């Protein structure tokens, strides 16, 4: 990416983190808030990085012309990530690390089952074996690909590397989304009682809902930014487009920092 844009992006990131730090120093939010901001940035980066692993074929995949899943990048990742947040939110009372584990596994499980059923459709219903169009040998299993590609197509189905990529993408997406949710939940349960003059138990529904909707909103922003980076279709981690991941990571860090800052500022008594 152009050096000047990278520079401005890093400056923006530091500015947002700096604002957060300034708020802590002035006693407007506790250290918890600053940690939450860092946690949200990490969560956003995990989401953006994870989405690059998910094999998406778009419209050509629906006709057996390209490998991957025949859905849009952003929404398939959102489906996996949100199922992960569902699992993570359920395990939230048990502590941060358990919740993260549950979120990651939730996202990964959805992708594992979905990718397997995609292959079931291709193999048993359409009689088409999986083949990649971008590599000659599957990097994990060593299976040779070109002769299993039907004529006139770029490949089809989900070769094993794409499957593993999908699962990893689901794991990272669920992990990132749950991290964002847990951090916001912690900040809101800490600061909302004072702000609204109520006990922690009473404001719990509001804290959960606000953290939930923010997590969903940030997830979608990160997923769409990543979709812009991928420009439509990607076969998985072995695809040359995967090398574009670093610039999405930078973009997502800045976007998550800004959105996280805005989410935290809600509970700061201004």
């Amino acid at each position: 990416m152009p050096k000047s844009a990278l520079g401005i992006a890093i400056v923006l990131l530091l500015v947002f983190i700096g604002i957060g730090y300034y708020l802590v120093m002035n006693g407007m939010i506790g250290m918890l808030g600053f940690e939450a901001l860092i946690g949200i940035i990490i969560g956003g980066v995990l989401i953006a990085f994870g989405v690059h692993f998910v094999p998406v074929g778009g419209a050509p995949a629906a006709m057996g012309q390209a490998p991957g899943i025949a859905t849009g990048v952003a929404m398939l990742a959102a489906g996996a990530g949100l199922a992960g947040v569902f699992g993570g939110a359920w395990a939230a009372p048990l502590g941060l690390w358990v919740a993260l584990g549950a979120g990651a596994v939730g996202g990964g499980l959805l992708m594992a089952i979905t990718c397997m059923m995609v292959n079931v459709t291709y193999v048993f219903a359409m009689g088409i074996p999986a083949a990649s169009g971008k590599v000659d040998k599957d990097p994990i299993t060593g299976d040779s690909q070109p002769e299993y590609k039907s004529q006139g197509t770029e490949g089809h189905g989900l070769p094993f590397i794409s499957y593993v990529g999908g699962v990893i993408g689901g794991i990272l997406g669920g992990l990132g989304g749950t991290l964002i949710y847990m951090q916001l939940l912690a900040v809101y349960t800490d600061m909302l009682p004072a702000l609204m003059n109520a006990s922690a138990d009473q404001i719990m529904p509001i804290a959960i809902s606000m953290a939930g909707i923010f997590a969903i909103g940030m997830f979608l922003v990160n997923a769409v930014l990543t979709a812009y980076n991928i420009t439509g279709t990607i076969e998985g981690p072995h695809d040359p487009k995967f090398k574009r991941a670093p610039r999405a990571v930078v973009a997502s860090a800045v976007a998550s920092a800004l959105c996280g800052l805005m989410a935290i500022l809600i509970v700061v008594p201004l």
Partner: protein
Amino acid sequence: MSVKIEASHDGIPHNTILGIGFVGSLVCIYLTYLNVITGLDLFSFFGGLGAVFALVWGTSTIKKLCSYGIGTGVPSAGMIALGSGVIAMLLATKFGIATPIAAVIIAAIAGLVIGFLANNVLNMNIPVMVQSLAELAVIGALIILGFATMTTGDFTLASLSSGTITIFGFAMNSYTTSYLGGGVIAVAFMLGAIAIQHPFNAALGPSNTQDRTLMLAAECGFLSMIMIAVISFAFISVGSALFGLLIAIIGWVYTYVQFIELSKRDAAGWLDAKMIVETEA
């Protein structure tokens, strides 16, 4: 193999639509403040009208952005609009009566940053990207603000997080049944996300005409308003909710009939139970 997206010749320039949509939306949302002044909640429906203005504006913005060929589909533009908009809007509700203006400013900042990231860091290099994403974020914030106001009657954080629950005839304050506590903002979020991209997505094609697209945008807005009016029965008085529902239904029927008329005007043929018309290939 993707659909060729062509920008049609616009009758009304985008900046005019921007102006009308922006001013109209803000004015309508502020008109709901009459609720606070008069003590009724009859004027909540202005929030929905504000969202309709914003949706019409948003259709024009998405059309402008997507005519450059962004590589992914149209729906993702709607998602990013609402995703950044909802965060900006919730932050803005802290500012009391200045909430709509604050929502615009905060959403604009968010949109500009995200637009810069998408255009320069992700190298998309589309001339109108930064401005379009800023507009979309503002539109997203206004849509959700409008729908939230229509549902609850007010746009401050306090009113969005208070709700009543009747147990054995006694009305008590409860956070679970509030707009935020119940997560009902999710409905406004998804309604806006689909409604903002549907007009351009559904009218996609070489024979796209602007008036038909904008009429479809208004139709989607009023349709969403109907749903929000139904949900508002749980928050505002029955009379006001009925009034809002009535206005939404009237608006929807009118725009829907108009849209069908315009489609009839534009279509190559309007056939009923006829064979496939084979062209000389």
